[in-house]
């Protein structure tokens, strides 16, 4: 099998898997709906001449399940692409939006907007999340300078900044919120897709698409970063400009995704590593594959999270952490720390 065939297979397989997962996840759940019911609902909302379901079932499919399924795909795909881009730029296999503190900062920003009553719409939340995410990332940068390659420094800075921002989040929540909203915010902070709505799906779709459209043409530059900034520069890349554009885009995308779903950890870490084993390290294949398989992964995780302990559901962020921590350990063990 040639390289090209393997690539085509990986992408086509990812697409097929994504379609099948969406179909399966839309059906799984307490209401006992069939794939035909789901299709009928979609058709009815698309204005096709089919008999709609009962208002209750229609509501379950159209207002609850479909937005949640699509949001899982967008958030999973988006976080995975961000993780892959951050790993390339920092040349650090442990980089991901969550570990770098961006997710934690974004949570603080979104909670501040929510709790302090600065606005409640998806856009206001995302703006707050972006502010917080960028602030957190700047804190990490201030701590590590340009020592991106040093795993230890990056991870330590990320952990410390995450702690700082979750402390700020806790203060904000305790200071301003009542018991009811505290519970809601806490659930969301752990990473949950339960509050999915068409508005958040639309916003995430726009941001995820825009993110891919910026990052994918930068694939050769990301490849060139493999041997460091100086080699990238000698290949005609302007490292500082590439870093500025791509760090900003990933921070923005992460912030919008976190505003919609809370800080779901480890997706951006595990998925790129798993996909690399399948497609190799070249980013023009890796990035689209991450978008597909990241979507599949988070959708599967969320479906398990909402059904495994039904009628109770666990935040999907808890589940990704359960899967992610062993994967993290594996990456750490496999990484041979370069002699200083």
């Amino acid at each position, binding site marked *: 099998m040639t390289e090209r065939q393997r690539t085509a297979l990986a992408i086509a397989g990812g697409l097929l898997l994504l379609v099948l997962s969406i179909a399966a996840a839309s059906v799984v759940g307490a209401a006992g709906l069939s794939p035909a019911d789901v299709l009928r609902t979609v058709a009815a909302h698309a204005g096709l001449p089919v008999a709609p379901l009962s208002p209750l079932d229609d509501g379950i499919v159209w207002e609850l399940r479909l937005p949640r399924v699509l949001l899982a795909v967008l958030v999973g795909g988006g976080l995975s692409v961000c993780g892959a881009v951050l790993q*390339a730029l920092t*040349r650090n*296999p442990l980089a991901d939006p969550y570990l770098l503190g961006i997710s934690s900062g974004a949570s603080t920003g979104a909670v501040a907007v929510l709790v302090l009553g600065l606005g409640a719409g998806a856009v206001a939340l995302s703006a707050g999340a972006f502010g917080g995410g960028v602030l957190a990332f700047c804190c990490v940068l201030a701590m590590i300078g340009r020592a991106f390659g040093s795993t230890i420094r990056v991870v330590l800075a990320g952990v410390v900044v995450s702690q700082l921002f979750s402390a700020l989040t806790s203060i904000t929540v305790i200071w301003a919120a009542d018991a009811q909203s505290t519970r809601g915010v806490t659930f969301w902070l752990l990473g949950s897709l339960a509050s999915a709505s068409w508005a958040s799906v639309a916003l995430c779709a726009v941001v995820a698409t825009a993110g891919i459209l910026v990052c*994918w*043409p930068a*694939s*050769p*530059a990301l*490849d*060139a970063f*493999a*041997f*460091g900034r*100086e*080699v990238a*520069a*000698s*290949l*005609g*890349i*302007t490292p500082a400009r590439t870093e500025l554009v791509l760090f900003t885009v990933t921070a923005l995308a992460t912030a919008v995704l976190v505003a919609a779903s809370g800080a779901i950890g480890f997706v951006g870490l595990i998925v790129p590593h798993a996909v*690399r084993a399948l497609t*190799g*390290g*070249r*980013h*023009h*294949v890796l990035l689209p594959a991450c978008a597909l398989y990241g979507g599949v992964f988070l959708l599967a995780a969320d479906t398990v999270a909402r059904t495994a302990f039904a009628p109770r559901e666990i935040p999907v962020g808890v589940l990704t952490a359960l899967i992610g921590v062993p994967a993290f350990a594996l990456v750490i063990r496999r*990484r041979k720390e*370069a002699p200083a």
Partner: protein
Amino acid sequence: MSFHAHDVTWTAQGRPIVDGITVDITPGGLTGLLGPNGSGKSTFLRLLAGLLRPQGGAVLLDGHDLGRLPRRDVARRLAVVAQEVSTDVELTVLDVVLLGRVPHRRRLATAAGEEDLTRARRALRRCGLAGLEHRRWSTLSGGERQRVNIARALAQEPSELLLDEPTNHLDIAHQLSLLDLLAATPVTVVTALHDLNLASQYCDRLLLLHEGRLIAAGPPGLVLTEETVERVYGVRAEITTSAAGRPSLRFLSSALTRH
């Protein structure tokens, strides 16, 4: 085609590393950059490559200040092989060599085309790596990595090629075949070297650096004299001239061990 350094200066923490070097690089020739550890060879190469901006003076490529040319245009002409490069990313040998095609690709082309593959494979063959195309970078020996980096630079199809001690990690057979390759290409090559005899044997012209200054420049017979070698390296050497008119050095003693 001209490549020229004019009064180039680089200072780090108040200490001059490269101190006012002016030199014309011979087009199409093989220029050896010599000097003891810490004499400024690597920094001077970086300045020539445009990876560092000179704090004084300028590097001129066809009369244009290198620092003002767009990076991509520079990368289409000038390739660099740094001394130690490594990566944790799992790339195949072909992936690495294809990086050399990045500056030649159309801006929005994210994947390498057939043309790029052909040129990358040609570069691999020239470096004796034809069978290694699908090997992973992490499984290569130091010498193989060095040759892959050189193949990557050749795939860039530069008119100027700068190398920082490319014979490091290579056994003598591979050192000779690399220098044969560099001497045979029509490309203008500047390479830092440690081995004075190899430099004398292969290079058209030598530049001898000492404490950031250019001490001597010219054909090997003029640069490698008993007097300059003792002055720069602190080593006494007996120099004979080979049949080809190139100096050959036999080292007698080092001032570093002589008290």
